[in-house]
């Protein structure tokens, strides 16, 4: 386990370094003249040239790469040409809003995925409807769902607010930057409910597609689990179908869905940019959109590095957690050994299960 963890962490460092190189190269080919952008179009050619030298743009490529890398390591992403403030501060200002939205999206997505998967495994009308809903929902683009939700619940029904994080003038400013947490910390329940109220529509809209993707995977592994012998044993003990499904199968089937959820959390940092744009959420998406419109590549580089680092971190964490839960993953030597911590099968001797699994192979031999 420790060797695996060290290996993954080294790979993580390598990937982050690669990300910095990629962003640096993109900055090179973007051809955006930072000195010119800082001084404005009316500045004289000499002034721009002096500024270029000050900024070190005439140094060899490798020197610049090393300097950029060390700057990034110390948390300095440069100065945004659009806002004039350090990119790091801009990102720190808009990141909490994005994290709050993504947290809400994941809560809704996982809850909906569990419900959809359990219902869609069943037979009958409900199962059929859930299967159709999952395959329709998986191909609905987030902006369509968000748009439909806006038209129905804001324009026609007036149930939810359309834009922003809060409608209060004096929203609590707290240590975390997450409105829901900060308002609870300061004991301001009105602000808390207001913040949740603003979260419902964008979070639900953006959660639909991830929920369907997770539900699809979970359904697949649930069906595999339901075909195993221990399910028959549990049924023979007198447990109901629902009980077997929730208590015995769900834990065993969670692995692939869990790793997919990790990928989705990481991907949402890029994907929620679009939904943020729709509901004017003051997060990274808004910042990225404005930076792109102003061709402010320094800011875009900072956003790419921040989100990229979060993406890589989340994925590595999920891998480590999965390995901890199920030590068979990633090691061929003990593949197939039934020592999964998630498999709670006290009533079933291990040898019985192994006999059941290996029976067909013996028959062939």
């Amino acid at each position, binding site marked *: 386990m420790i060797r695996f963890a060290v290996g993954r962490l080294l790979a993580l460092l390598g990937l982050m370094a*690669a990300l910095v190189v990629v962003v640096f190269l993109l900055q090179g080919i973007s051809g955006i003249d930072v000195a010119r952008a800082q001084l404005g179009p009316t500045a004289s050619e000499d002034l721009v040239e002096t500024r270029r030298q000050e900024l070190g743009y005439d140094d060899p490529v490798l020197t610049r790469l090393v300097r950029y890398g060390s700057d990034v390591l110390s948390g300095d992403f440069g100065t945004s040409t659009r806002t004039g403030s350090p990119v790091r501060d801009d990102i720190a200002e808009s990141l909490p809003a994005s994290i709050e939205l993504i947290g809400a999206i994941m809560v809704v997505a996982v809850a909906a995925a569990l419900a959809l998967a359990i219902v869609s495994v069943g037979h009958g009308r409900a199962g059929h409807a859930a299967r159709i809903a999952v395959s329709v929902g998986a191909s609905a*683009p987030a902006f369509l769902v968000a748009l439909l939700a806006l038209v129905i619940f804001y324009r026609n029904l007036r149930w939810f607010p359309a834009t922003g994080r809060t409608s209060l003038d004096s929203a609590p400013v707290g240590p975390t930057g997450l409105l829901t947490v900060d308002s609870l910390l300061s004991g301001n329940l009105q602000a808390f409910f207001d913040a949740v109220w603003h979260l419902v529509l964008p979070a639900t809209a953006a959660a639909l597609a991830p929920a369907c993707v997770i539900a699809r995977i979970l359904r697949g592994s649930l069906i595999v689990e339901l075909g195993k012998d221990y399910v028959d044993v549990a049924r023979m003990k007198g447990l109901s179908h629902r009980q077997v499904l929730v208590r015995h199968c769900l834990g065993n089937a969670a692995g692939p869905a869990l790793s997919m959820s990790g990928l989705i959390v990481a991907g949402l*940092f890029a994907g929620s940019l679009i939904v943020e744009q729709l509901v004017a959420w003051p997060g990274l998406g808004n910042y990225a959109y404005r930076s792109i419109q102003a061709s402010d590549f320094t800011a*875009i580089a900072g956003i*790419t590095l921040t989100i990229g680092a979060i993406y890589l971190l989340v994925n590595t964490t999920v891998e480590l957690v999965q390995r901890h839960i199920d030590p068979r993953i990633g090691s061929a030597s003990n593949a197939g050994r039934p020592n999964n911590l998630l498999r709670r099968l006290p009533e079933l001797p291990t040898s019985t299960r192994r006999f059941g699994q290996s029976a067909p192979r013996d028959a062939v031999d």
Partner: protein
Amino acid sequence: MTAPAISVPDVNPTQRRWRSRLSCFDLASLALLTLVCGVALCAPLLAPFDPVARVGDAFAPMGTDGFLLGTDDGGRDMLSRLLYGTRSSLVSAVAVVAITALLGTIIGAVAASCGGWIDSLLMRTTDLFLAMPAVLVAIAVVAALGPSLSNTLLAIGIVWWPAYARIVRNELVSIGARSHIVGAQLTGVSGPRLVARHLLPGIAPLLLITATLDIASIIGILAGLSFFGLGSSAPSPELGAMTFQGLPYFLSHPAVPLVPALGVFALGFSFNLAGDAVRPLLAANR
């Protein structure tokens, strides 16, 4: 899974399996895909108006003056724009997938057939690309090159080929151990002929299914990037961009942003359904 002890030879395997494994629902999915693609490709024949020209009053309601879906803020016919936009999304997505699949297949085939350090080098590079957040890198690439449709397609291609290289390489390595390949090698077939005649046909169904499902995702990503202002420029009909430009009017005229968004959904959905429908063919090949 374990192999059956005795395998029963099939007289005409391909035909029989096609018939028995495609249900009515699967055939309907394929028919839907054909219909959607046909309508999109025939946009110049079907569209009643010029998609970029002002042909009527702004925000004409649906069904008036021959504007079946009404007009947008610039007085342009929504139906014509929807048809042309769908065609543009379809052609772009298919082109990106075709090129990245070809490139990825070549790289994967080289890695699998050379082995050794070439294989390691190519696959480590692939892993590096696969570990990166694809959409984000694509956004950064487009932002660096400047927003335009071709740059967006290029950016998606750059982040997409490694998936194919990885799939093709792994599949080729696993097929290479099977008896019909060993048999072909024993009769003296080797090199490019072995790859082209014996190995690649084995991965064709997998590639086809992956590509079909990928077209669906790329249509979504492309629309998302255009929605973000990174696709084609203003007047040309592009579904994501149309949605974004219609956004300010969603309170008064919700159809203006909703119609192109629904177009993205219809296109992606029919590709997803078709991909699921041909999935059994993969099992038939095993």
